[in-house]
């Protein structure tokens, strides 16, 4: 079990800035996130889209904002546990125990939930039969390329993931690339590569059409797709790869006994504490009268929550409000002299 002062759930901009606000107060934190990288929605949903309402930053992309935040928290050498989802939160006297799906266990007097809209998970095929083939012959990610050698592979989707994997796997397998409309939205050079491989007969492009059924007993043997004009086609298929992006699911958070309004957690706007002492929520996932789902609101929320975290983590010390411009202690913690 790893002990710390604060367990932060979610490595989006608000979770990252929480590290800063805790760090300058001398508190340690660890961060857990279900994605394989930090940045949350900024990285997953709009890495290239400009954001115009970060104070004093007239314009920056989600990716740039994440980079800047990482730079800002560098002095604190915080440990990140990525690709991990918090499954369980339990009370242990004055502490909270957190268990993850990666069998890690953490203990801390405080938890800050900065989970956005929940954890990102692949969007699944809507066909009912699809589920029984999951992880045997239907996949939402490629973990081991070897598995896909010398097979008939049907890839669904029209974005970069679908195109990139179509290209990569076409080196040693027969690929069907299936999309609901004629246009693909990938990098132009990827698209021209795909077109070239189509001419060479290595990739067969099927548009505009959608999956209508999957055939097979234990493993998939074929799929049937339906074109917009009503025609259907049966395609011999060993594996389906489906790339319809990620969706956000609240997941286990709903089961931790927190007061909730729809998919958000009720907090006290004085310190952003939930109905459970020592569990805070900030950013898009929290709600209170007048709540705005803005990154800047999340920054404010973790600043206030960090004060309460200090009181709980250091019950014998007095909290002193300090400015970074004048506090030698803070400057020391930031590695400045």
């Amino acid at each position, binding site marked *: 079990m790893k002990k710390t002062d604060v367990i932060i759930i979610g490595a989006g901009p608000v979770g990252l800035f929480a590290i800063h606000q805790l760090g300058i107060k001398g508190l340690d934190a660890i961060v857990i996130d279900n994605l394989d990288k930090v940045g949350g929605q900024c990285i997953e*949903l709009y890495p290239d889209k400009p954001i115009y309402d970060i104070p004093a930053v007239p314009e920056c992309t989600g990716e740039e904002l994440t980079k800047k935040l990482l730079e800002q928290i560098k002095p604190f050498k915080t440990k990140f546990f990525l690709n991990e989802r918090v499954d369980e939160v339990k009370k242990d006297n004055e502490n909270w125990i957190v268990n993850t799906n990666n069998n890690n266990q953490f203990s801390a007097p405080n938890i800050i939930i900065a989970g956005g809209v929940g954890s990102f998970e692949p*969007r699944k095929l809507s066909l009912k039969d699809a589920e029984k083939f999951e992880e045997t012959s239907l996949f939402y990610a490629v973990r081991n390329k070897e598995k896909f050698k010398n097979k008939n592979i049907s890839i669904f*989707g*029209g*974005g970069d993931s679908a195109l990139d994997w179509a290209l990569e796997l076409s080196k040693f397998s027969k690929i069907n690339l299936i999309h609901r409309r004629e246009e693909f*939205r990938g990098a132009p050079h990827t698209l021209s590569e795909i077109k070239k491989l189509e001419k060479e007969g290595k990739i067969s492009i099927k548009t505009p059409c959608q999956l209508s059924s999957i055939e097979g007993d234990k493993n998939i043997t074929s799929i049937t797709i339906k074109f917009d004009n009503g025609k259907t086609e049966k395609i011999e298929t060993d594996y389906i790869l489906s790339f319809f*992006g990620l*969706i956000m699911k609240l997941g286990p958070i709903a089961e931790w006994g927190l007061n909730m309004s729809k*998919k958000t957690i009720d907090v006290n706007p004085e310190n952003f504490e939930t109905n459970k002492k020592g569990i805070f929520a900030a950013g898009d996932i929290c709600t209170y009268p007048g709540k705005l789902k803005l990154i800047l609101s999340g920054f404010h929320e973790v600043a206030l929550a960090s004060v309460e975290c200090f009181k709980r983590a250091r019950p014998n010390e007095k909290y002193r409000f300090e400015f970074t411009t004048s506090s030698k202690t803070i400057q020391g913690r930031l590695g400045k002299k």
Partner: protein
Amino acid sequence: MPKITYKDSSGGSKTIDVENGLTVMEGAIQNEIPGIDADCGGSMACATCHVYVEEEWFNKLPKAEDAEVDMIDMAFEPKKNSRLSCQIIVGDELEGLVVTTPEKQT
């Protein structure tokens, strides 16, 4: 305030007045219309406010920009008349608009 009708996939329907300037998504959220999640809050980043727009209305609406159409690829069972309701801004010309929410959003 134009009247907008939100139908669901099982035939239920609700008609409400939506203030000009709001989006069809915001109209639904403020009036607790089920079937529209709008997880990203209207930043065209999630496709969980996906609706089907009745044919006659679909052609009257300003065309979806590329980024919206790209995002609709990610929606649950997209069709030719799919739109993201966060991108449809309500004005007097939308009096009587009818949209249908999909069976589910994710």
